């Protein structure tokens, strides 16, 4: 499909959305599954991460483009990943 220019945002916005989706999406996916593995069966959750993770990650990459402002996408993804990571670290016996 020839892309219609009115649906496209500027290069800075686009870079923000791509990095939010690619990097942020990865952090959200991985921290989500790592946190879930605290309560669910650990090995099974990790096996699910191997294949389900790619689908969730790709979905999050698409969702990053639904934000009007790319910086909000970055911030939201980092916050969500941060919350999951925090929960995971709180449950580590070593600290």
């Amino acid at each position, binding site marked *: 499909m*020839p892309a219609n220019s009115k649906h496209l945002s500027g290069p800075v916005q686009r870079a923000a959305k791509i990095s939010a989706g690619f990097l942020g999406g990865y952090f959200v996916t991985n921290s989500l599954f790592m946190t879930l593995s605290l309560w669910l069966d650990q090995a099974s959750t990790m096996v699910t991460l*191997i294949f389900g993770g790619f689908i969730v990650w790709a979905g999050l990459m698409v969702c990053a483009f639904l934000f009007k402002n790319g910086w909000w996408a970055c911030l939201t993804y980092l916050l969500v990943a941060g919350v999951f990571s925090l929960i995971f670290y709180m449950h580590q016996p070593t600290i």
Partner: protein
Amino acid sequence: MHTVSGLVISVALFVIFFAGSLSFFRDDIIAWERDKSVAHGQQMNIDYDALLDTLEARYGELYGRGINIRQSHQERNVMISLDPSRDSLASDRQLTRVFTYLDTETYAEETYFSSYTLGEFLYRLHFFAQIPYPYGYFLSGFVAFFFLFAIITGVVVHWQKIVSNFYVFRPWAKLKTVWTDAHTALGLIGLPFQFVFAVSGAVLIIGTSVMLAPASSLIYDNDSGRMYRELMDQPEPADFLQSKLNNPVSLNPLIQKAKAFWGDANLSRVLIENYGDENMRVILEGRPKTNQSFAGLGRVVFDGKGNQSTATKSSSLNYKVGADQTIRRLHFGDFGGYGLRVVYFAFGIISCFVILSGVLIWVEARDKKSNAVWKRKSNQWIGHIFMAISLTMYPITAMTFSMVKLFRDDSIATPHVWIYKVYFISWLLLSALFAIKQDNFFTTRYTLLMGSILGFLVPIVNGLVSGNWLWRTFNEPQLQIFVVDAFWLLTPLITLMIVLKMKKPSKNPARKWTT
């Protein structure tokens, strides 16, 4: 930058799908090349006691070693790995790790490289293993992942028009609409297939390295052995006691016992821990036949004296094993015989067509009068280069099949380098020629024609070299050879018909830059 990266991904994706489609016949191609066909269901049929004696004669005493015997492909070679002996008095010879391929009939050994074949080459090409590790793996893995992203965005963008567009086919309208309609119609038919391959491809090639990177350090403390044991549902290793057994058990009766217990199942792996030690353990794994069950894994475990400790049915399944086996089955298409493989192959080639038409749409859409002339020219160039690289794969592949039959012999010290040279150099030259010609119609027509002619030569060359003519190999033990020859009879026939039906398109007026 965007166009270049888009081109790289499209070319990579085309190569992956083309080489991957051929890889459904990997085992057949290898059997055809070596002229050593194996009847279906004959895997792991070996005299295991003779095998261990052979290994002992060649690699020294096996005491304290771990021995792993597998045969993941339908071929005559089994894969054997010997872990270093855990004996504290072991000699240097016993401490070397061994990885070898052994012919189950002649007991001749081969290394990975000496047994390298065109089948292996094409299989490896579909995840760019020829590019040094890990770059090739990461490239193909991320291409699969971005392909998944492209599929999802494609569905989102087209969602409202998906059904109506599917029925629209306007071959007599502008050139662009032909590609657009073909792209949407075939893209929709192939969508579930492509989704499965995007996900399973990413899983198999970068699943553990990318997705489990945080988990392997944070959960498993970088102990990859423990991680794989837990994720693949492997038993905990047995301790080594450092005291020799008088007479380690003979393997063949154990295998007979396990097979009798499983009933109709295939032995898939023989694992021996602490060979010859008081705490020796023999683990036999069996999987159900594919016409019985889609997935399953049974284990029968014996100690070094031949006492059976645990046994599970070959159809037993848990989530971890099931998930892993399902991904592999779906990706390799090995659960339904040749009929299924042909369907998988057809869908793979349809995907190649969807990628080609996607690039052509992209070029046509940017061929507008409002764009600068140099931009339109460079876009056209990109399209020509892409078409040349992609489509020349067909004649080059057909040619390499004949080349390995005609000129490959044991005097070639490094067969993999030889195959690289034959394939990559001719591919580069031919695609450069077609790219310089700058005519997509010409490229399509002559690559298909060359591919057809070279393809027809494959069964003829094989008949002349080996005497295995197409009409002689249609029998159970030689079916693999027949399949490859038949493939190179039917595919060129289809492409030749396409060439004969092709008509030179009338010049698109929008293409005139120079007046």
